[in-house]
């Protein structure tokens, strides 16, 4: 299973094995990792699963849809590396992925 490192805003690190096919959001939520709220459960409707994807992984995680882009535009503390983690599907190619969480999702 691909290993994903989730880093909370306070620096706490969680290295998890996440099943292929789940989203990066689901990997965190199903393991009760704080910092990703995911209010809409992955419907790309809430923008409370915001993460920063380590620059080295930007290409591998794929492109944003127009929907994701617009949602992110209005999220708090958005950076160039911001993504909605429910829109990133976990595959073997993402083994080693590192995502950081923003200060707040609300």
């Amino acid at each position, binding site marked *: 299973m691909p290993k994903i490192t989730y880093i909370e805003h306070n620096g706490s690190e969680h290295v998890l094995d996440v099943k292929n096919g789940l989203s990066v959001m689901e990997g965190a939520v*199903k393991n*009760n990792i704080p910092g990703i709220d995911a209010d*809409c459960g992955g*419907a*790309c409707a809430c923008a409370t699963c915001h993460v920063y994807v380590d620059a080295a992984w930007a290409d591998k995680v794929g492109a944003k849809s127009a*929907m994701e882009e617009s*949602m992110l535009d209005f*999220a708090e503390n958005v950076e160039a590396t911001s993504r909605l983690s429910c829109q990133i599907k976990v595959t073997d190619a993402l083994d080693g992925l590192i995502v950081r969480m923003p200060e707040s999702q609300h």
Partner: protein
Amino acid sequence: MSETKSGVVIIGAGHAGGTIAALLRQYGYEAPITLIGEEPLAPYQRPPLSKAWLKGEADADSLALKPTEFYAETGIEMLLDVRASAIDRAAHTVALHDGRTLAYETLIIATGARARSLPIPGADLKGVLSLRSAADAEELKASLGPGKRLAVIGGGYIGLEAAASARALGGEAVVIEREPRILARVACEILSDFFTAYHRARGVDFELGAFVESLSGADGHVNGVKLADGRTISCDVALVGVGAPPNDEIAQAAGLDCNGGIVVDIHARTSDPDIFAIGDVSHRPLPHYHRSFRLESVANALEQARQAAAAITGRPPPAPEVTWNWSDQYDLKYQFAGMPFEIDDIVLRGDPATAKFAVFHLTGDVIQAVEAVNAPAEFMAGRQLIAQRRPISRSRLADPTVSMKEVAA
């Protein structure tokens, strides 16, 4: 006899109950947590039951809030398939239907709502379904497909999503609504007209202003919906979607303040300081609108779970959120936020004919609510503007060439 355990007892293992159990552990709560659920399943998400799951695009695992082993690993005791039957506030205990009694220090009522049934002849025929639980959804899914005609009684979101899913599965669908328009209770006329046209263009029939008198059947199975005008709308399965009253009887019997739901404050606390109520069952304050309301949405369940978990663990209360919700039908992403109380104007932004537009509800120049179809920027900016209660320019809001960033600037 009481099994001494105490800590937090949660009645209702649904979206709100499951979420607060996990949140309490996240927030460092270490005393026992017991989660009592009437359904045989660990907490799961209901929204996909009328959407992705119904169309076969999501599996059962993805519905579960947490993997089953999570509860044991984090010391959350789950008692499933058993109903809580009474609360003894003086003794601080909950009685279960199977005779057990549990002691609590803090009680959380998260019993949700149930599908309202129709008090008409034929409502007990086979094939007359409602859609609240995973079991309901299994039954519905098994009745949809090529050659099957679904009659949806009640034109709300869940019924419309089911109709869209029925079409996606190759069957037919007809929506029967008592009001002259669908979504009458929850959306404005522009949205009602838009969704009606969009569904019609995709083969869904509508009977509007139609009063259902009874259901007809053969061999105990439904085969039609009889209307007051004498016509019978034929169908193979009927889905009744006419609202969801709160499961607040257990709170009423215990003498907690109820008013179409259990009355709570901004911390989700009931009239008894040791008892909280969260989710669809609660009647809660809406700080942005200076009034109280019973909301039925995931966002509401989660917000109240955060409020109560913060209060129980002594954390600062979370900032009030603007209520919001979403619906998926075909390729439409519908998102809405706020409440259209005391509205004196609406502003349409974009053209419904393009299936990308938003309707803003205003009091003076202040946005109270937004309904957005395939218009995430309008939804997100609208939600922020509602929270800020900041006046905007209506003419700029109505002009899609002015970006929402500029409108909000």
